[in-house]
Structure formats: C-alpha cells, structure tokens
C-alpha cells in the first residue's frame, strides 16, 4: 500500500466509523449502525468537524442532528475534550455553533460560540470542504455568511431536517440513556464509565471521562452516600466501583459492549491523517516516510494504548529503517478493523 493509498484508506475508514456512529444516533444512512462501542457524542462531534470536511453530506446531516438533539450534549465536556484535539477545527465548531444559534434558534450553543471566539484562529479564509484527493471543493452560488465569519468558505447551508429519533434501546447509546435519566451532568457520564470499570480513583476517572477532577470527586462521594456506588479503601488511595450485575439489569446493558476513550482514538487518528495531509512531501521518499511514521508513532501509539483499543504494537519496535512503514500501516489497519467491527485482523492481547 502506497502512502497515498494508506491516507485514502485511513480517511475512508474514519468516515465509515463516523457514519456508523451517527447512524446509530439517528442520521439516515445505509451503513451498519455502531454496535460494539459506547458512543461518546462530544468526541464524535470533534472528529466530525475534522474528518467531516471530506464529506459534506455527513457534515450537514450532523448540523441537523445537533439542532434536534443538541440538548443531550454536555457543553462543559465539549470544552474539555477540545484539549485532545489541540484546538484543531475550533473555527469549524464555532461556525456550526453560530449557525445553530442564528438559524436554528438553539440558544444553548451561545456558550460554544463564545468559547470558540476566544480560541478562534485568524487564518486566511479557506474552503471548508475538500475532496479525498485534498482538492478544495469550489463554491457554486452564494457562500454561507456565518461560516465566512469563521474563515471558512462553503455554499449556503440547505438542511433537509429529516432525521430519526435516537434509539435509546441501542446499547451504544447508553450515554444518552444515562444523560436522559440523570441529567446532562458528570453524574451520567461517571455512572456510564463505572459500568465498564473494575474500580478506579477519582483522578483516573476524571481523566478518562473528561470532567474536572473536583467535580468528579464530589459526585462520586454523593453517589457513595446513596449506597449504590462503593468506595474501596487501599493503602495508596481509594477506588470507586458499582455492582455491575444490578446496574446492567436496570439499564439493560449489552455485555458485549466496550468502552474506549474515543477522544484519544479520534485525536490520534486525526493527528496521523493531518501529518500525511499537511506535509505530503515528507512521505515521498520511502525512507523519509518511514522516519516520519516513526516520529508520528511516538505520539500515536501511547494515545491508542491508553484509549483501551487493544492491538499489539510489539513488532513495530523491531522494525528498522524502511521496514517500519509496512509494519506501522499494518498496525493502523488492525486498529481500524477493530473499530469498524471487522474481526479478521484483530490480535488477541
């Protein structure tokens, strides 16, 4: 697989993952719905702001979805998740949020507009959408004013407003079920996390669910008071757990469902894609491409490992010189296969 083919494969796979997850959330699509991983809507939105620039239909469908279901998103968490994406696509998010405020009259997004304005990048105006060959898609007709204000050129937004309701019975939408039950706050996300955890302290939990530790600590202690969450004391601190079987029965949780830290997965994959996309000349020579992939892997692999995606990377350490590229490509391919729910390439840990 050439580097160009690899980049295209990565982009296609990412768009596929995004479509699968949005389809599970109610966007009409002919792709299979996500059925393996718990969906993280805030991380999914950032990933869509990034990869969605290569798929206008997905991008616009998501604006419709946000207009209809945005109340289920947690704005504080959305801000916290941005750290993983290094402020990337802040203008895209700002433009979407302002569109929702002005055109769809969704005042909740005002906070996002203000937040994005503070971090806005004053770059030259660029085309929002691109082809998979990285060629900007020209605008036919009038440009959308709101997006132009954020330095993004696109055609006028023309939404169909056809969308299904979120299927709360789909196990992947557990977080939405929890938020509908507990409210849009850390409590819902903490309980959802604990359902997949064998016990962790408040710092570890806050890092994995992207909430402020003080808030997480406070909520955990409140939950402990109810007796439904347990605090176990150890020499080095305390761990929080809950009774999986009771909670699973009550919330009808599918045991095959997995929890991974999507913010890490999406940001690592976007980082890889961005490097290949922004500096393609670095990948023209086969040795330099290997060297670059190795450089990328130093950030990429730890992020993937700590996200909960279990794919072996041992063989990468032994690959020297140009041999690194095929091994790295194979590693990324296995990750994507796993995320897409294809099992033929997965290695057991």
């Amino acid at each position, binding site marked *: 697989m050439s580097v160009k083919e690899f980049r295209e494969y990565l982009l296609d796979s990412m768009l596929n993952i995004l479509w699968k997850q949005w389809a599970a959330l109610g966007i009409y699509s002919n792709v299979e719905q996500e059925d393996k991983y718990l969906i993280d809507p805030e991380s999914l939105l950032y990933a869509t702001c990034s990869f969605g620039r290569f798929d206008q239909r997905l991008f616009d469908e998501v604006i419709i979805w946000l207009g209809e279901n945005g109340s289920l998103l947690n704005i504080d968490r959305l801000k916290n998740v941005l750290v993983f994406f290094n402020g990337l696509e802040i203008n895209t998010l700002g433009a979407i949020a302002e569109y929702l405020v002005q055109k769809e009259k969704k005042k909740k997004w005002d906070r996002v507009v203000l937040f994005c304005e503070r971090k806005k990048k004053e770059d030259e105006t660029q085309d929002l959408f691109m082809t998979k060959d990285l060629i900007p898609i020209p605008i036919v007709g009038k440009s959308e004013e709101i997006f132009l204000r954020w330095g993004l050129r696109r055609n006028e937004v023309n939404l169909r407003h056809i969308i299904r309701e979120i299927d709360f019975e789909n196990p992947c939408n557990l977080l939405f079920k929890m938020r509908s039950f507990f409210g849009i706050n850390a409590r819902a996300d903490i309980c959802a996390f604990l359902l997949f955890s064998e016990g962790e302290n408040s710092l570890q939990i806050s890092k994995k669910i992207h909430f402020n530790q003080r808030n997480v600590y406070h909520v955990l202690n409140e939950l402990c008071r109810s007796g439904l969450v347990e605090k176990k004391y150890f020499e080095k601190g305390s761990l929080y757990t809950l009774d999986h079987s009771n909670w699973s029965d009550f919330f009808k949780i599918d045991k095959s469902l997995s929890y991974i830290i999507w913010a890490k997965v999406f940001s690592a994959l976007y980082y890889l894609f961005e490097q290949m996309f922004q500096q393609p000349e670095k990948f023209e020579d086969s*040795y330099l491409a290997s060297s670059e992939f190795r450089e990328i892997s130093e950030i990429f692999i730890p992020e993937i490992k700590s996200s909960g995606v279990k794919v072996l990377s041992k063989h990468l350490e032994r690959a020297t010189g140009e041999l690194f590229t095929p091994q790295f490509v194979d590693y990324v391919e296995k990750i994507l296969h796993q995320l897409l729910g294809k099992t033929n390439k997965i290695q057991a840990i």
Partner: protein
Amino acid sequence: MLDKATIENVLTALGKQIEFMKKGPINIIVCGGAALNVLGQIRRTTKDIDIVGILKKEESGKLKIQEAVLPRWFVDAAERVKRDFNLPDTWINVGPTSIVCRGTRACSTMEYDP
C-alpha cells in the same frame, strides 16, 4: 554492528535527512573500520563511523581539513537516523578528530594536498 551495506544505508539515510532539512552539503572525512569497509579493504563489521574531520574548500580552491565540530542540524539528522535504525548513541562520532589538531594550540585546520 555495521557491515558495508548497513554503513551505506545509514549514510544514505543521513544524507536524505539533511537534504530534507534543506541543510548541507557537508563533506565529512571518515577513518577507521567504517572507511575501510566501504572501500572494500576489510570485511569485518564495525561498531561506529568515526569522523576525523570536515573537508572545506576555500575560495582559492585549496582544500582544508577542519576539526569536526558538527553543526546542530547534522546532530539532529544523525539522531533521527539513530532512532530509525536502532543504532547506538555514538554510531557516528568525532572521536578521532583530535588527529587534526596535531597538538597545536589553535586546533583548527590543516591543509590537504591530494
């Protein structure tokens, strides 16, 4: 350990890194096992590449061998090659450059007359 093919491979890689950084060129003079290996004089492997000096051409056309004080970009490029090929820290080093000094206080250059 470095054999002839590996030495050529890692030096080519070093050249590519330097070229990509838009730095160089730099003419290094290599001595010891690596030099003899590439010239085909010996077949045994060597553990490193010894730089004895840097060759500079003056405006007069005269060539001068200077003490090997490697620029930052060279060190950075060598560091990347080290990482890429899993080489030891001193895979390319200026250990023997004191030969150029010949014990003079100036320790700067000596003329080279091929």
